[in-house]
């Protein structure tokens, strides 16, 4: 798949690693990819998303993929679990953040990030584009079921649907 990535798309992936590492998150999640797209200047300007507020939103997220909302449906308070675990094992213990940070430079891709990159390939195919660029990564990230992305966008006052529409509109204009 990666041999179809343009230079700019590879830069997005590298940048996502750097963003995740800089935030001290244990893995590269889809929201780090989104942040990398924004940092590369590849968000549709019409959305008016500020890179720094997006970074703040991603920073505030726990940096793992535990689904507090789904757990709440069966009566489990994830925040309470996190608190009690961190009381004994320190901040970030549940996410493995502390532990993984010591392994120099190695920040693995999460399932959400992998799925988003796979979708970017499908987006390129659907648009009949030969290569995968930052725009396809952006479109691949815009899934309503991706919690990290949905939450980060919500903090910036937008949604995957709106970003997707803006990205496709910008593409039509450029054509």
């Amino acid at each position, binding site marked *: 798949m990666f041999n179809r990535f343009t230079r700019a798309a590879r830069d997005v992936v590298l940048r996502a690693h750097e963003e995740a590492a800089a935030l001290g998150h244990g893995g590269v999640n889809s929201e780090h990819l989104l942040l990398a797209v924004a940092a590369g200047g590849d968000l549709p300007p019409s959305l008016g998303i500020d890179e720094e507020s997006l970074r703040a939103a991603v920073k505030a997220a726990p940096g*793992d993929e*535990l689904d507090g909302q*789904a*757990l*709440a*449906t*069966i009566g489990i308070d994830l925040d309470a679990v996190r608190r009690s675990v961190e009381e004994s094992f320190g901040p970030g213990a549940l996410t493995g953040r502390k532990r993984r940070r010591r392994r120099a430079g190695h920040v693995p891709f999460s399932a959400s990030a992998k799925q988003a990159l796979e979708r970017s390939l499908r987006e390129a195919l659907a648009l009949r584009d030969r290569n995968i660029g930052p725009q396809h990564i952006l479109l691949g990230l815009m899934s309503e079921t991706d919690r990290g992305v949905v939450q980060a966008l919500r903090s910036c006052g937008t949604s995957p649907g709106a970003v997707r529409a803006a990205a496709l509109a910008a593409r039509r204009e450029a054509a």
Partner: protein
Amino acid sequence: MSEATQLADATSSRDPAVGLAAVAALRALLESLERLQVDNARERGWNWQQIADGLGVSRQAVHKKHGTRRLIGRRS
């Protein structure tokens, strides 16, 4: 969390999408907790048999799952 709880109440508890998402989330939480506890036990010098007994599984199972993970301060 109250917002999430309200959301949960609003959705039918018989909705498979809700139920399956809860199971998936619980599994992810379980895996995180297991990794944390096994690593802690190893750091404290527990052997695989002791850890397996604690988890109620076979020594082979726990070693296969966690044996390849490198621990802090045990880098060889």
